[in-house]
Structure formats: C-alpha cells, structure tokens
C-alpha cells in the first residue's frame, strides 16, 4: 500500500516538523508556568504515534475499515484533466483577481471549472459566469459590505 504508507510517513513528518520547530522557540523571560513549547510537543508526540500506527497499518494489509466507497470508487475517465481545469481556474483567479477585478476573474474561474466538469461551450459558460458574478458582486459589496476588487482595477 505505497500511497497509504506515504500518508503515514507524511503524518510522521508533520510531527517531526512540529517537534523541531518547538525546540527552536525563543526562550521566555520571567516566571513561566507552561512554556510555549509544551503544548506543541504534546501535539507532535500525539501525531507521531498516530503516524507510526498508520504506517504499521499500511504495511500490514492497509488501513482498517475503509468505507465501501473506497473499494468501488474508480478514477473517472478524464477526471485528471477535469481536476487540472478546476485547479487552473483557481490558480488563475488567485493570480488575476487583483488585476482584472472580481467579476472577470470569477467568471473565468466559472468557465474553467464548468469545463472541468464536462461542459463543452466555453463562450456560453463565460457569459453565464458574468451574468452570475455581476449580481453577486453587487449583492456582496453593496448589500453585505464585503469588499471585493472592482471590475476596473484600483490603479486606473
């Protein structure tokens, strides 16, 4: 079970990072009842034990009591490509939102994720995206007081 072993080792690694970080906290001055490293060490120890037990399970027949879904679930054909589209949409919105504003960036995300889920008409998706995000933009900024980057960005 290489994937499961990797997860177990990953958890052990997180535990090690926690412990290493805690060992390098700056010293505290004065009377300290429970230093800042005590609780992180405890979490690290807890995760370390859990991670090692997971490695043990992974090596001896795999994780116990996985749900029925786990057995029957198959990677969907085109699933990886779809997930790439969704991821690309999210990366795109993160990189672009401060330049092209919320409405355009979110519409782009809408079209990319729709594509990822199998839609094949990008122009229509983009149009639906804009038709959806414009009223949302208005509702959230004017109605609910959430500030979002405007359509035309701030430095123009």
């Amino acid at each position: 079970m290489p994937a499961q072993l990797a997860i177990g080792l990953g958890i052990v690694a997180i535990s090690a990072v926690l412990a290493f970080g805690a060992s390098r906290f700056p010293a505290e001055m004065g009377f300290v009842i429970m230093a800042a490293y005590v609780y992180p060490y405890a979490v690290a120890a807890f995760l370390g034990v859990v991670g090692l037990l997971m490695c043990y399970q992974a090596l001896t027949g795999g994780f116990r009591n996985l749900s029925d879904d786990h057995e029957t679930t198959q990677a969907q054909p085109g699933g990886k490509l779809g997930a790439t589209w969704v991821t690309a949409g999210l990366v795109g919105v993160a990189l672009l939102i401060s330049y092209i504003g919320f409405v355009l960036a979110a519409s782009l995300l809408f079209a990319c994720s729709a594509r990822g889920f199998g839609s094949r008409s990008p122009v229509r998706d983009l149009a639906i995206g804009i038709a959806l995000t414009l009223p949302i933009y208005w509702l959230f900024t004017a109605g609910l007081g959430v500030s979002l980057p405007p359509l035309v960005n701030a430095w123009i």
Partner: protein
Amino acid sequence: MDILSSLATGFGAALAPINLMWGFIGCLLGTAIGVLPGIGPALTVALLLPITAKVDPTGALIMFAGIYYGAQFGGSTTSILLNTPGESSSMVTALEGNLMARNGRAGPALATAAIGSFVAGTIATILLTLFAPLVATLALKFGPAEYFAILVLAFTTVSAVLGASMLRGFASLGIGLTIGLIGLDSTSGIARYTMEVPELVDGIEVVLVAVGLFAVGEALYSVLYQKEETSARHRLTSLWMTRADWKRSVPAWLRGTLIGFPFGSIPAGGAEIPTFLSYSTERKLSKYPKEFAASKGEGAIEGVAGPEAANNASATGSLVPLLTLGIPTSATAAILLAAFQNYNLQPGPLLFQTSGELVWTLVASLYIGNAILLVLNLPLVGLWVKLLQIPRPYLNAGILVFATIGVYGMRHSTFDLFLMLAIGWAGVLMRRFDFPVAPVIVGMLLGPMAEKQLRNALSISQGDWMIFVTQPIAASVLVLTLLVLLVPYLLHKRGIKLHEDD
C-alpha cells in the same frame, strides 16, 4: 417563570420584521443547500461569515440557525426522491424513504419526514429552553481544569466515535490541532510555525480551512472520482398521509426525538449514531417488520419518521454544548462558534448573563424557524425538486465562485487563495482514504482553547499536574473520555458502520 419571561422577551425580538426576514432567508437558503448535493450547512455558513462585519449579531445568528435547521429539512427531500443522501445523516432516510418512493409512496415519505422534523425540532427546542439555562448555571462552577477535561472529551468523541477508524479520526484531529498551533501564542507572544510568512502570523482562519475542505476538496473529488448521476428521479405523489400513516408516524417521531436530543447535547458529535439507533429501534418495535428494506419490503414509514426526527432533534441538541460551554460537536456547530467569535461573543455559561437577550432571541427564532420550514417545505416541495435540475458543471462552478468570495473577501490575500487550493487537494486525499473532516475543524478551533485552559489550570495548581486527578469533576470527565474510546469497538462488534456528517 424566569425562563418564560426571558423567552417571551426573545419572541418579541425574534418577531420583529427585520429578524423574521433574516430567519426566512436562512430557512430558504438552508432548504436549498440541503436539497442540493455537494453543498452542506457548514460550507454555507462559512461562506456567509463575512456578513458578520455588517449585519447585527442577532440577525446574522438567526439566519445561520435557519440554515442549520433548513439543511436538515431539505436533505430528506433529496434522499427520498434521488436515493443520494443530500446530507450523510439522512442516509437511513435514503434507504427506507427511497424504497417507499419506488413503490409510489414518495408523498407520504416526504410528509412524514417534514412533519417529523417539525415535531422533533419543536420538542427539542423546548428541551433546549429548559435545559440550557440549567447547564449554564452548572458550568459556571467549572474552572479551567474542568474545562480542559471537557475539551479533551470533546476531542475524543468527535474524532473517535465518528467515522470508520479511530486512528484516522485521531490523525484528522492531530492535523486540526497542528493548524490551530500556527500563529501568535497568546500568552508568550511567540510566533509559532509561521515560517516567516507574514500571512500566517494571525493564524489560519477557520473559514479558509472549511471552504478548502468542503468546497474545493469536494469539487476536485467529485470531478476525479464521481460519475454524473443519471439515476432516475422518483415521481412526486400526493403528500396526503393516511390514518394508518399518522398512527405509525407519531410514536416514531416521539421516540426519534428522545433518542436524538441527548446524543446531540453530549459532546458526541454528529447525527449519525442517533439516526441509526432510531432506525434499529423502529425496526424492532414495528408491527410491520416485513416492510423494512432489510426484509426486501416496500419501505416502512416508521423507518423514515424516526430517523428524521432523531436527526433534527440532535441538531438542536448540539446547540446545548455550543451555547452553554462554547464547545461545538460538529463541523457546522464549529463554524457557528466562529460566527459568535466574530462578534467578540464567547459562547459559554457567561453568555446567558452577558448577552441574555441575544440568546433568548435566538432560541425563540428556532421555534419560529421550525414553523417557517414546515410551511416552506411541504407545499413547495415541487419547487425545491426543480433545483436538482441545475447542471452539474454549473452547480460546482458556482460553488467555487462563492468559495473564492468567502476566502478573498476576508482580507484580499492571494496567499489565502493558494492555501485554499492546497487544503482542497489535501481534502481530496482525506476523502479518498476515508479520513473524517469534522475533527480538523473542531481541532483547529478548540486546540488553542485547550492550551489556554491547560495553562490556567496549571497556574492555579502552581504547576501541579495532579489537579486533573484530584479535582472530582475533571477526573470523572477524563475517566468518561477513556470509556468513550471503547464505543467504536462496541459499535463495530454490532456491525454498525458510521460515516461522518458534514
């Protein structure tokens, strides 16, 4: 008398037009997201948390409570008509209700679920009205040692009892505790695990983690592993329940409520255990065991009525520890706690004294919300079903757009959006390998609280750890925690498999 007059004041405030409007919006939204697969109450409330900046606490909390309740109502509609549970706590409903629908009895199944939810919700709210002040008074006597012990109990129940594997539950909890560690330590002022990233000094927002796991993670998982649902929808039939239906439903509703409420109100998290318990109780007590799914029958109405009532009662019950102790027992309750904290309100025994009016208005709004939901759900069920026609690409794309608003709206940070994406991919792994999600959310919120209480407890005892053994209440709670660790073992032995509720 004291409770009654407080409640009357609460009703006065809750019936104000503006609060009625928030309640109505909440119920509407809640039902919609309950009906829609792939979006649950935890995510919805998380996405709406930014409104706490503008809307007054009473209105916002009334709306969030409406969403919480509404999702339970809406979830049953999807389970009965589609056989894909809209919420995982309506899994039993999907089993029995879908069978009824297949045999032309969709209407009565929907009716018994909705009326049962109303009856259970109302009775549970009465119980909440009576018990919450008592628990709050009791909790006033708790010191830090007791609180720490209760937090440990909550950690254990949330991660060990839910889900299929105690070990994976603990792993999720550990991840949550780790996320909670990031940021400034409130006592020493040391920045912990911020890796020189300025965005991490304030810690990671619970909204970001919830949105990453529930919206981005779900969407990615769904595109990677789930086929487009083509399962036929069952036809709606008349909602009319026959005399026999009523006679069989009423006792099931009452039993379901009595099972659900206590399970919700102890920190045992989730509506899974009570719904399963109610289902097996009904099967045992029914005069028509042949109708149940297990005997390949046509679907027994008790099997829908009882679990649906238990489901709703436990949702209400979980407000007891949230309001009186400040301890959430489910992901949604954890997000509700975050909503309180956004207003600088700390749920706990003092809340009843410092913000009594708010609490009682909220409780009153629960009575009103249940009535609104019954009216919204039964006659309009045909309308709700139409929501299921939204094409899958647009539904998921829309959820992701809202996720972006929720996360970016907080502080306009590109870093946050990348973090959300990373957490989403981690969520895919967790889902794939059957890790529960609720312990992550609960752990990251309660972890810092546990550390603080532990520090306070040790300050009082002057560094003596024996305080957790010598203080009777703290010690018995810790013993209880050890006993809880045996529960999953017993459940497995009886062949009961649980999945978490998000």
